[in-house]
């Protein structure tokens, strides 16, 4: 795509990234984000949580500013994704995410969402330690159909493979209902490797989704 530039995210991208993550986390049931559907956050809380976590959260998971790539055209951000190596320092990203969310909510609200959190945990794929994780893909409406995701994926892989001992595989987890996104990832070499075996009723009630599919591809 002419004029498209992929670069590392910067603090000036924070507002755009909050929008990008919110859009990428919408659930089929009612268009709310996973944060609202599972953790009962308000829309304002989702924005505050994402903004705070992007600035100050753990670096070893997908909600850290330094893990994001931004696609821009004529100086305007039009796409983004997060990319990180899972458990690079030994701690699974899901553990860090759970801690960050529980700290934000406080113990009472975290425990109150326990059944939905367990439903999410039982539905979500296991991220392979040492694998490149790609998540929070977003393309602005005016840039759709132009291959933004493919460019982001290519850049994320190139960056991950630049040093010695690059990850052997890359993984993308997404809701089963995101057919269009899955087709775009298939063009980039990703194939289904895992799928939620049995839809969890509580997860389905909260999100309208039957679960996740995990896509995988080998890296050169």
């Amino acid at each position, binding site marked *: 795509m002419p004029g498209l530039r992929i670069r590392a995210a910067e603090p000036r991208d924070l507002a755009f990234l909050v929008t990008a993550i919110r859009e990428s986390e919408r659930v089929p049931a009612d268009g709310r984000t996973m944060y609202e559907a599972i953790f009962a956050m308000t829309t304002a809380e989702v924005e505050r949580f994402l903004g705070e976590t992007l600035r100050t959260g*753990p670096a070893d998971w997908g909600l850290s500013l330094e893990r994001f790539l931004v696609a821009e055209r004529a100086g305007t951000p039009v796409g983004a994704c997060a990319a990180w190596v899972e458990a690079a320092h030994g701690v699974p990203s899901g*553990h860090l995410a*759970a801690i960050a969310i529980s700290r934000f909510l406080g113990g009472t609200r975290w425990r109150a969402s326990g059944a939905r959190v367990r439903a999410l945990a039982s539905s979500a794929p296991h991220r392979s330690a040492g694998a490149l994780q790609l998540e929070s893909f977003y393309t602005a409406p005016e840039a759709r159909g132009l291959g933004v995701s493919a460019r982001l994926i290519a850049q994320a892989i190139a960056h991950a493979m630049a040093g010695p001992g690059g990850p052997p595989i890359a993984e993308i987890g997404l809701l089963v209902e995101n057919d269009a996104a899955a087709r775009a990832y298939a063009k980039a070499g990703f194939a289904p490797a895992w799928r939620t075996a049995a839809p969890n009723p509580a997860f389905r009630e909260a999100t309208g989704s039957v679960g996740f599919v995990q896509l995988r591809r080998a890296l050169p």
Partner: protein
Amino acid sequence: MPDTLDRLQPIFREVLENPGLTVDRASSARTVEGWDSLAHVNLIAAVEEAFGVRFALGELEEMQCVGDLVDTIARKRGG
């Protein structure tokens, strides 16, 4: 007085609901059954309460195993 690792044993057994569990310094989420993200939150909360400490997110990011947890508790308690 029991050392830190001894004091952690009942916490791990209760949170992970495994009365026969014994962890050592090398134990980690990869080696201990049931130590998932939900258990991790509960473990950290229980350890913070038992030892009267509060971990920063950056510290939690660096705790790969029980040994790291023991060392971080000691450091935060001035030991």
